[in-house]
């Protein structure tokens, strides 16, 4: 693979049209019978579908940051996955047990050795993983070991077209960049000069290629400044702040993630730089803690942003179960791992129903590709769940993404709906 192959330009409308066709031909009957079925998830995956997996014991590995600055994220991911496993079992589906590995905030050896341990000692058959290099380093291993892998945290274009690897979230920074820039231009029509700030990691394509191409289009002749790069783990942004100030930019587009984002936003605002900031990640609650009030000061987020208060019935089920079990509302990271784990349960059952052994190599990927549309906690309406659709060719996913205005303590308010690689803006 040399180039990203995400030139699909699937607009939201196309997806919905496709979904309508799928639903009407009965391949995805669950949506039509939202209240039918045996267990809580049956309503969304179809009565009797999950039950096909009854009695199957399935070990699912999770490769997460459980220590270090990302430990809170790893915890949320585990809890999201656990809720899906509980609900699948309650719906008569397979019994999924989670086996954890700590990659210590993205260390490659800890990731590879740990996942090997999960495969060999814990007997996992599938894996959920997060972080960039810590996930990418696993690709040869999961290809060789036939471990179906869901990349559901910090996923980048490196995960596309990889055997046994499915990306279950919008590609970090790359997917929402176009829509985010379009929103920025629409909301701030006077903004012409756009400053770009990034880390040279997964999001680099957004800064290096997408923004210079898209911004002049959407801002009717605006210009981007030379990209500014900072190292991961930076806490002092003085040099950057001074450079941005003298550059007199009208807006900032940034792919900085993790705690660094909090330090940057706070230092920019305290230095009197009040121009809008469009970012593509928000680690809660760390970034709001670090940034303080600055986080709610003209900051936006273009991302497959998760809203726990969404009325979508699939989401309500998730939020209610999660809150009951853990006493807090789920966040973005929990939601992504919930979705991926629920899909896993459905795939195992689907394979069994088709008379195949789900443990055989590539079976899960095959049955996924046969019908790549699944319910999503993102988007949707009070009566219908949102939808996510995988692309069987490059293993990416299309799911509802949006632009959000960041409020106090990092609470999000959706301001627009966007689609991967499209400048079209939909309503909130």
């Amino acid at each position, binding site marked *: 693979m040399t180039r990203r192959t995400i030139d699909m330009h699937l607009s939201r409308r196309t997806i919905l049209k496709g979904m309508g066709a799928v639903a009407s031909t009965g391949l995805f009957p669950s949506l039509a019978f939202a209240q039918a079925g045996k267990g809580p998830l049956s309503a969304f995956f179809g009565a009797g579908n999950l039950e096909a997996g009854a009695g199957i014991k399935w070990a699912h590995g999770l490769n997460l940051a459980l*220590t*270090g*600055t*990302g*430990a*809170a994220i790893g915890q949320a991911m585990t809890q999201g996955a656990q809720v899906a496993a509980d609900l699948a079992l309650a719906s008569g589906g397979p019994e999924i047990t989670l086996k954890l590995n700590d990659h210590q905030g993205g260390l490659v050896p800890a990731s590879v050795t740990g996942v090997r341990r999960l495969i060999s000692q814990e007997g996992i058959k599938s894996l959920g993983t997060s972080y960039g290099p810590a996930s990418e380093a696993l690709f040869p291993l999961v290809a060789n070991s036939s471990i179906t892998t869901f990349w559901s945290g910090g996923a980048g274009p490196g995960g596309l077209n990889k055997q046994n690897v499915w990306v279950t979230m919008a590609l970090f920074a790359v997917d929402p960049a176009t829509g985010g820039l379009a929103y920025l231009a629409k909301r701030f029509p006077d903004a012409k*000069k756009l400053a*770009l700030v990034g880390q*040279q990691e997964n999001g680099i394509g957004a800064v*290096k290629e997408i923004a*210079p*191409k898209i*911004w*002049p289009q959407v801002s009717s*002749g*605006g*210009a*981007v*400044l*030379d*990209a*500014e*790069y*900072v*190292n991961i*783990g*930076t*806490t*002092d*942004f*003085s*040099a*950057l*702040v*001074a*450079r941005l*100030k*003298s*550059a*007199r930019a009208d807006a900032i587009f940034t792919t900085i993630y993790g*705690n660094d984002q*909090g*330090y940057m936003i*706070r230092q920019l605002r*305290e*230095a*009197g730089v009040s121009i809008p900031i469009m970012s593509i990640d928000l680690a809660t*609650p*760390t970034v709001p*803690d*670090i940034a*303080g009030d600055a986080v709610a000061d003209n900051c936006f987020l273009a991302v497959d942003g998760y809203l726990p208060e969404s009325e979508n019935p699939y989401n309500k089920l998730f939020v209610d179960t999660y809150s009951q079990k853990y006493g807090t509302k789920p966040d973005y990271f929990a939601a992504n791992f919930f979705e991926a784990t629920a899909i896993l349960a459905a795939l195992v059952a689907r394979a069994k129903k088709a008379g195949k052994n789900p443990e055989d190599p590539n079976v899960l990927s095959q049955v996924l590709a046969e019908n790549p549309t699944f319910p999503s906690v993102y988007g949707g309406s009070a009566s219908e769940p949102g939808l996510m659709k995988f692309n069987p060719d490059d293993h990416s996913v299309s799911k509802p993404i949006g632009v959000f205005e960041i409020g106090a303590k990092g609470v999000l308010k959706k301001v627009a709906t966007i689609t991967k690689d499209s400048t079209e803006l939909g309503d909130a």
Partner: protein
Amino acid sequence: MSPVAGQSSPSSSPSSYGNVMMQLSQLIVFGIVQGLTYALLASSFWIIYSTTRTFHLAHSLTYAIAGYAAYLTSEQLGLSLWLGFAASLICAALFGCAIEALLYRQLRRRSSTVLGIFLSSLGIAAAGAALLQIIFGPMVKRVPGFPNATLSYGEISVTTLQLTGALAAFVAIGAVTILLTRTSVGNAVTAVRTNPKLAMAVGIRVERISLLVFAIGSAMAGLAAYVETIAFVAYPTMGLQPVMFGVIGVFLGGAGSIKGAALGGFVLGFLLVFSGLFLSQNLGVILVFTVLLIIIVFRPEGLIRSPVGE
């Protein structure tokens, strides 16, 4: 880095970073703030290192403990920010003294090597940070409420908190310098630093002086940690990077005097920021480390030669 802007949009010119004077002044202001922070840390490490010959990397744990002390006092117990400040300094000083009395003194009595002391210190730093995570969890800890405002002069800005921190660092370094040069206690410290055996022979209690410099140095680190905590947050590994840069500053400036150490820390912090005049921030870091290597190679005694060479 490729000139992305130039390629894609002709309307953007390379000179888009306009007002150079403004940028220069702003970088100087930020550079001084950052420089004084590292000068404080360098001095805090220096007074311990030069007096006791202890490569005290567990200083990073002292720093984190000071941050958590502020959090516990002002946030958990709900006491005032000033009490949190006092707690930071006192806890830092007590921890520094404890580690000196319980560990380093034992190691010196057993005539441990430089490597032995260095590794024990790292052992404490690593175990301590892990314990902080086990006790307080991995989440960052906030101590909000410290009054802060942005001051502007034209387009150049600085926050009152940055000014306060820089001023506090300056005053602390000045106070310690005066203590060292103008008082009898300071003379005793200098005597121990230059010749511990002779100092012992003339009746100076070397072990007491060691405790004293650990208390002073740790409290200085506590001050820096407190400023960071109220400005941002506290977390278990918060001390690693600042202390590491402080250590580098000591050797950059010259380990022979507090002037050298403070200057080295200042230059390091200032350069890290000031390189922003020419370079994107990630390249600035590389530049600073390259300069540092060159200085170590060609001027191993540091920027300021010490009158009391070793």
